[in-house]
């Protein structure tokens, strides 16, 4: 094994979540939610919160690391890191960065967190009302193409055209997420199952995305504690080992005005081979996956780019039966995910991936050993993660 790997050298030792709220419904401030989630993750790990000496986040988290460290009275902050890019692209990467910091000796115990309170701040899905705009957005916004739903719909449409794909896989992905949320009392959509009829009848946001193809927007906070594998073995919970993480982007995926050369990619064609190589496994070894659903179309292309099926097999592979626990070929988003549990920018997906390894999911895959996370498809940069028992 190469000396230069994080493989199995670190583990997730603590998981913390606040209650998840509907958008704008959090009764306390976003910063306080972040503190509560971090405290809960430390409690879950069985460590004092002051044992944290590193902080990693992503998506331009508003809750500054130094403010968090100060509020919690951390004696010594040794690592502070932000994964570049918006959306959920950096979720797995933040865990990977935490692991790398520990392997490098920068820090010994790193917390990754995400907090959102959209009543206090703005919505993600709305376009700010600016009178004039310049640069990359000037080539799209004046045409009413300004939201992630709109750019991901364009790319999904092309992928569907190229590979003769109907609405069925998108519906199956949405229904799988909602199905799993029905077993998860924490989920915003708990008690609200989704039928195919209701999916088909729901309003279009932008074709080919119905309302139910689009992520929620929520309030809450989540936190994950990463530490060395050795230390994790002495802590309260069964360690969830970090096998591998990859981050980055394919060739020129930042080209503005829809000029990424590989147009309909989820942006994992270069990451997935590196991820599997670091983990030393193949797609068939993965027991369960949490795939960031900004929109169902990007889940579909992520499943393809992680090698679970070829593009021409999507119609057969991406079915409700295959994507649901406990017996599907690749159960995805087993807590309900961004579509039906909570939109915590995908950190809740990483928590669910760890629960699957611990054996504590509300939709537990039997004997799940290897658990994958895919963060932020169709944005750039993106990241992914493999955890194991």
């Amino acid at each position: 094994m190469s000396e230069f790997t994080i493989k199995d050298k670190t583990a997730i030792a603590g998981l913390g979540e606040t209650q998840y709220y509907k958008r704008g419904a959090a009764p306390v401030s976003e910063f306080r939610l972040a503190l509560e989630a971090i405290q809960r993750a430390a409690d879950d790990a069985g460590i004092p919160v002051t044992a944290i000496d590193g902080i990693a986040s992503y998506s331009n988290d508003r809750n500054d690391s130094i403010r968090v460290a100060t509020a919690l009275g951390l004696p010594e902050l040794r690592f502070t890191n932000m994964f570049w890019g918006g959306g959920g692209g950096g979720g797995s990467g933040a865990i990977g960065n935490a692991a790398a910091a520990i392997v490098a000796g920068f820090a010994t115990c790193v917390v990754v967190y995400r907090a959102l309170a959209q009543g206090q701040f703005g919505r993600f899905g709305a376009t700010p009302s600016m009178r004039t705009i310049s640069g990359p957005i000037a080539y799209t916004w004046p045409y009413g193409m300004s939201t992630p739903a709109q750019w991901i719909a364009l790319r999904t449409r092309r992928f569907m055209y190229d590979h003769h794909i109907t609405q069925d896989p998108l519906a199956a992905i949405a229904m799988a997420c909602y199905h799993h949320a029905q077993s998860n009392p924490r989920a915003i959509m708990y008690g609200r199952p989704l039928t195919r009829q209701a999916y088909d009848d729901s309003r279009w946001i932008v074709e080919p995305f119905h309302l139910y193809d689009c992520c929620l927007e929520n309030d809450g906070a989540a936190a994950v504690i990463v530490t060395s594998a050795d230390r994790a073995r002495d802590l309260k919970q069964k360690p969830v080992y970090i096998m591998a993480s990859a981050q980055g982007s394919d060739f020129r995926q930042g080209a503005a005005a829809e000029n990424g050369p590989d147009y309909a990619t989820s942006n994992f064609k270069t990451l997935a081979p590196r991820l599997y190589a670091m983990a030393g496994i193949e797609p068939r070894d993965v027991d369960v996956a949490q795939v960031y659903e900004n929109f169902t179309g990007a889940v579909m292309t992520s499943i393809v780019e992680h090698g679970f099926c070829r593009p021409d097999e999507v119609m057969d592979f991406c079915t409700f039966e295959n994507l649901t626990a406990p017996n599907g070929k690749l159960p995805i988003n087993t807590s309900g995910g961004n579509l039906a549990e909570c939109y915590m920018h995908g950190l809740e997906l990483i928590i669910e991936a760890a629960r699957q390894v611990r054996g504590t999911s509300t939709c537990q895959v039997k004997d799940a050993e290897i658990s994958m996370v895919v963060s932020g498809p169709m944005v750039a940069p993106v990241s992914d993660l493999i955890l194991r028992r």
Partner: protein
Amino acid sequence: MASNENTESKTYLPAGMPAPEPTRDGLDREFWEAAKRHELVVQKCNSCGTFQFAPEWICHKCHTLDLKWHRVSGAGRIYSWERVWHPAHPALKSACPYIVVVVELPDAANVRMVGNLLGNPKIDVAFDAEVEAIFEDHPEGFTLIQWQIAPR
């Protein structure tokens, strides 16, 4: 009915959308100035001939800084499209649905541009359909590049 079928409006989308301005560093000034003259231009590398859109300060292929603006015919081909039903911007509240297209420019190595497809927003658009650029002048003093199905 969608307001983009409103005969009073000469623009596809209603007034109140954000107006494009050249970047202050001058990178894309010529693109917007050319549009006002009803000319469509994209970047072309003086050294290796690579086309680029959106503009950059450097050729991504050969890394020269020697780039020029190259006028193209305005012929395009639909690479992808979508019909938008949810108004993400307040100005669009009565304008949905409308159609957004991604258009390839075959005479510039298939670089792509985003625009609207003029005409009935309820039609289904054919992939690879041939389109032509239409210059849509706005009273605020800028010009957008729009697209319409090319006459056969």
